[in-house]
């Protein structure tokens, strides 16, 4: 584990503060995953408020524990892609259709505007974008229960 040449901390305003090797302070930096879907653990960039890259992290595990926790917390507070565990019901099989779903972040409803908002990530994984642009993930549609599968199948 190599010690990076910068310092990270969180200030009272809840912002991440980055101090580079020249002791220049950047407040409110944001970590961004380069491949949020295909390789979330690899390649994380730290950007300043202007969107310029300050540091590149090849792999989170390479970082000191404290930094890693800070970055992970920041990522967690920004990442919002509920994973659908079960589809309880849909209002209709024609779009726009309201879906009642159970996700890993609790139960919710959303409106699917059109079938084209269901994007195939791989043969089994789907990404559903709701009417407000929130992405819902289905990791493996074949692993869903029969009821959900049946409902989902009508839209594929």
């Amino acid at each position, binding site marked *: 584990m190599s010690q990076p040449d910068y310092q990270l901390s969180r200030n009272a305003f809840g912002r991440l503060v980055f101090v580079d090797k020249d002791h220049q302070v950047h407040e409110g930096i944001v970590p961004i995953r380069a491949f949020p879907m295909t390789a979330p653990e690899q390649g994380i960039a730290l950007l300043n408020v202007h969107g310029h890259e300050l540091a590149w992290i090849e792999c989170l595990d390479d970082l000191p524990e404290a930094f890693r926790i800070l970055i992970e917390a920041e990522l967690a507070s920004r990442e919002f892609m509920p994973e659908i565990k079960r589809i309880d019901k849909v209002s209709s099989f024609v779009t726009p259709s309201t879906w009642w779903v159970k996700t890993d972040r609790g139960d919710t409803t959303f409106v699917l505007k059109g079938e084209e908002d269901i994007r195939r990530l791989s043969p089994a994984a789907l990404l559903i974008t709701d009417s*407000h642009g*929130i992405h819902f993930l289905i990791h493996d549609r074949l692993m869903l229960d029969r009821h959900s599968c049946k409902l989902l199948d009508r839209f594929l």
Partner: protein
Amino acid sequence: MQQNFYPAHSDAMLTLPPLWVSQVEAHLASEETILAWLEIDLDTRLRFSRGIVIATNQRLLAKMTGEESWHDWSYQQGLRLTCRDHAGVGNLELFDDHALLAHWCYTLAKDTGANRLITEFTQQLNSQLTGETQIQPVQVKCPTCAAILSSDQETCPICVQEAHIPPSTWTLFRLWRFAKPYKWRLLTGFLLMLGSTAATLVPPYLTMPLMDNVLIPYQNGKPIDVDLVTTYLSGLLAAAFLAWILGWSRTYMLAKVSERIGRDLRTTTYKHLVKLSQEYFGGKRTGDLMARIGAETDCINLFISLHLLDFATDVIMMSMTALILVSINPSLALVTLMPLPIIAWLIHLVRDKLRTGFEKVDRVWAEVNNVLADTIPGIRVVKAFAQEDREVARFRAANQRNLEINDRVNKVWALFTPTVTLLTEVGLLVVWIFGIWQVSQDQISVGVLTAFLAYIGRFYLRLDSMSRIVSVTQKAAAGTKRIFDILDHVSSVPEPIKSIHLPTITGRIELRNVGFRYGTRSVTRDINLVIEPGEMVGLVGHSGSGKSTLINLICRFYDVTEGAILIDGVDIRSLPVAEYRKHIGLVLQEPFLFFGTIAENIAYGKPDATRKEIIAAARAAYAHEFILRLPHGYDSLVGERGQALSGGERQRISIARALLIDPRILILDEATSSVDTKTEKEIQEALDNLVHGRTTIAIAHRLSTLREANRLIVLDRGKVIEVGNHAELMARQGYYYHLYQSQSRNIDTEDHLAELDPKSGSKGDRA
């Protein structure tokens, strides 16, 4: 609905979600009124949860469902409420001078609520601190999203659009809208159908007396009554002829109507489609849309002219047959008709399966089309990177999926028809058994049994073809749904309900707190800008800074999410879209030339322009001379994208196009960036003619081309950060200065390279 901006207690209470009303009421102090509220739908760990944040005239209140008590913050110096969003999640944060006090998360569905909350909170805070009692402007606002409505709008276009009501499943009946103009012809067709069907039912009826009165008596030793036979046989012939004539006129009449319905459907859909906003086209794939208008309408057309007609004939024939059968012999009729409910049930059973199946087939077919639509326009890239095989593989995969889904549908479908046939045979067997028994009991004559068998043969034949209607109906219903998907799509730049007409404008553009969001990404926010008539304004900034978005908003390709754009003091949303765009001349980075002559292309925005006008426009755009050099002058054909012309030439044609409509507002979107510096100079000269005396908004990557501008607006990440002319901005040494510096360095090297170019060219000779 005239709503006061400053809501009374009851108003805000009324709109409060019912879940919270009692809790909030219990917690409010006396004299405390609610100004704005935001319902929270996420907790801070981003799990779905409920909560509420309320701004009252005394404090800020918040509570999540899981929590016991309310949190509150009274108005005091240093308090700040802000929001930011990322990937669909909004963060509402409350700060004081030293630290973050609280934060809440919500999905972007609640975004307008959050903005309203912040505005109300900030206003209230200011008034409490300064002790001023503010005089609020009375504005009509949308009750749910608080968008300011112009005085003539009664409902909020944004909220109306967001009413997600799924279309009814009885989509096919919606085709009635297109059939209505032809209702008299349809009625005639229907009467003809009744007649022709009745005529076809005569022959089996005549077999009964033929059998009982002629053949059987003959077998029993009586001579054949020739007169009787002639009567019966001429009856048969007449019935056949009648059926022929009626059948022909019926089919012709109804096919004619259905063709007309198809035509209207196609035209209406296309008309609706081209009027939809840019946003719609951004989200759809060309192949899919083309398939919908082409193939789907054809499918519906075929359905009406052929299948629906057949089906109606079948139904009529079956009910008539049933009537005749019952009138001849009720008990045999009962036995004969017994399999009918079973078959009907079977049809119903398969219906659902097939419908979903066919919808799937359609979707997968659109996918195949999309692969084509993606690759064929990009064929140069495909070839350049030698990815033909990859594209073929992609097509094969889509095609394979098509095959698999068709296979699955066919499995059900294939089983269906033979089952119906089997049931037919079984049904016939039942009639035979019961009939023979009845004949043996002397309850019926042989003639009656023959007639029954003749009828029933046709009857079940029709059932078989009727079962086919299931699939075609579902197919047509699916097609109709997809067509109505387009027709139901309300343009996100809706035509105003009561429009204001501005025949002439001066060209004063005002942007008020303009914000725009694309999906979850907020592209521009809080832009305030006034452009005076005749002024030339340059938009400057890195790519992605919101320049093009701003122009799209001014052209009303999209509507603003927040704020308003005013032209001569009138909200552009209250002007009819087409009328408004007539005032705008647009020159794009990639000039698009339609298939047709050059003259037609120049006159695109004003089809009735005279030749003189066209030439004048071409001269002013410095296009006249090169056009004359073309083999057919102004009548030269240019291809789909004007392939035969160079980039500079195409651009000058598009400038001439903009000049011809003589717009008050001119928009140049990177008009010179796709050409080399020499061509740019030529285009620039053409543009100088165009710009003269018009309100001009120009985007240019090369800052040197904007030096003529009266003012430069420097944008960064969706916000205006600097405004001024070139000299002022240079003197300020800010963002623009750095941008200019870094560019002029690049341009130096570019010129340097240009000098080197001949040398490298001569070096290239050895190759």
